[in-house]
């Protein structure tokens, strides 16, 4: 685990999914968020949903960023959000997911809809970074005010 301090900005929990061992995506997102002034906790790869839930309860982050590129992100992402939203204290925590979420490299409208319906606040299929940066700057403005 990796924790950095930058006192004022929003606190963000970055995590991989339970079956995904890729970490360059996580390292990259951490740097990007830190440069945007966020405080980042990076849980690393292969994180079981119960551990993500426990870390959320302990840290009360302003945003949870889930990243997956191994092709199981859709299924793993659904299981994770079910566990998080089942906790009354996490019902309102903003959670987003992104990366390469299926095995076919296509934008999958049905999957995005299912992830949104299951409780994700935003889905970045095939990792749309421009839209993600906009979300972060809005969040920073909100936390700062």
């Amino acid at each position, binding site marked *: 685990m990796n924790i950095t301090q930058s006192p004022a900005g929003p606190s963000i929990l970055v995590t991989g999914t339970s079956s995904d061992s890729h970490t360059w995506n996580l390292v990259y997102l951490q740097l990007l968020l830190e*440069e945007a002034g966020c405080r980042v906790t*990076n849980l*690393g790869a292969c994180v079981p949903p119960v551990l993500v839930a426990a870390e959320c309860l302990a840290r009360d982050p302003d945003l949870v960023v889930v990243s997956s590129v*191994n*092709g199981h992100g859709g299924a793993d992402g659904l299981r994770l959000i079910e566990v998080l939203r089942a906790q009354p204290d996490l019902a309102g925590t903003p959670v987003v997911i992104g990366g390469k979420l299926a095995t076919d*490299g296509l934008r999958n409208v049905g999957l995005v809809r299912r992830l949104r319906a299951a409780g994700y606040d935003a889905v970045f299929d095939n990792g749309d970074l421009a839209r993600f940066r906009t979300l972060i700057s809005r969040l920073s403005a909100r936390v700062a005010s």
Partner: protein
Amino acid sequence: MTAAAPLGEFVARAQAGGALVVQPRMGFSDPATMRAGLAATKAAAATTVGTITLDSYTRVGDDEAVARALRERTPLNGYPIVALPRSTSQAVLDGLRDATFPVQVRHGSATPDRIFAALIELGLDATEGGPVSYCLPYSRTPLREAVASWRRSCRLLAATAGRGAAPHLESFGGCMLGQLCPPGLLVAITLLEALFFVQHGLRSISLSYAQQQNPEQDRQALAALRRLAGELLPGVEWHIVLYAYMGVYPRTQGGAMRLLGAAAELAVGAGAARLIVKTAAEAHRIPTIADNVEALELAAGRAARAARRDDRGPGDEPDDEVYLEARALVEAVAGLDPDVGRALLTAFGRGLLDVPFCLHPDNAGRTRSYVDDRGWLRWSDTGAMPIPAARPGRPTGRLTAAGLLAALSGVQRRYDEGAR
């Protein structure tokens, strides 16, 4: 049981005959597709070894998720060998695996007990990984648990020797995190894993190295690996397996194939016996069977035309940088404890081995690497590793997201330039 070719022997024979063995990284959750993939690999115009790559749920032991995916017919990123009935897997292999076609199981599991048990039940005897290379980049499992599981698994596999099987184990240590790990450490880790395998009874092994960003540095690394293997593994059957670039891959068809061609030439020129290929789909999605066949045939064709290794390679010079670095690391670690597994635990505990950018809790995380202007991987911080400190000229500023992405995508950029 079919009279299958032992992988080690098959590769040695091919190398003696002047052919580079090529192998895909192929795995599908549907047994019929898996069988078709093996059949196409066997039929390809190349000297091939078949591959069954396992899915990520099987790798991390998540039985429930495998069962759900099979029930709901969600495609997995590999073949679920533990969950599927043995009879199903027998039918996948039946008539394909024979004296001309060995099959290797590729997984990426830190605690592979059940995977080894399953493949042994199927009469398979070749697989890969290692206590370090399948723990740090593939899991959050404590290294101590991975070492214990790999000890048990190695012994289980080694014990099949003579019972119709000729167990072969490949170390994945030369591919740590796929990219940005300087070669001295890659070579040291694959050698240490090989010593671990030998200590637990295996007598036929392969050592790995992944193509990095500069061919000259890669040739040095492969020469160092060959020389150190000769010194450290007397009486063991071994060969070197090269992986086509394991980092961020070119997005264009032309760029992807050029990079693969360069890997095939490197393999032949530097004395590797086997090549694991990548396909034009790498940057985008799980490759199809056709993607894999195209890659196998391209690599085999390029290898057949490439120049053989010159025996007085740069690695035979005593002051070769990768050789000295790898030897210093192996000696420092092997000297810690006569038991290689315990030595590895102590080494990571003290940061004597420390993989740059690795987030695993048992990795010290005090080293850093960078790509210099010629594409050589260099240390900017060696942490507590027993090797010379970083040289002058290294970048000193803070690493930025853009800087990381530039380092990760250098190969992609160079190979995609001008390609379609």
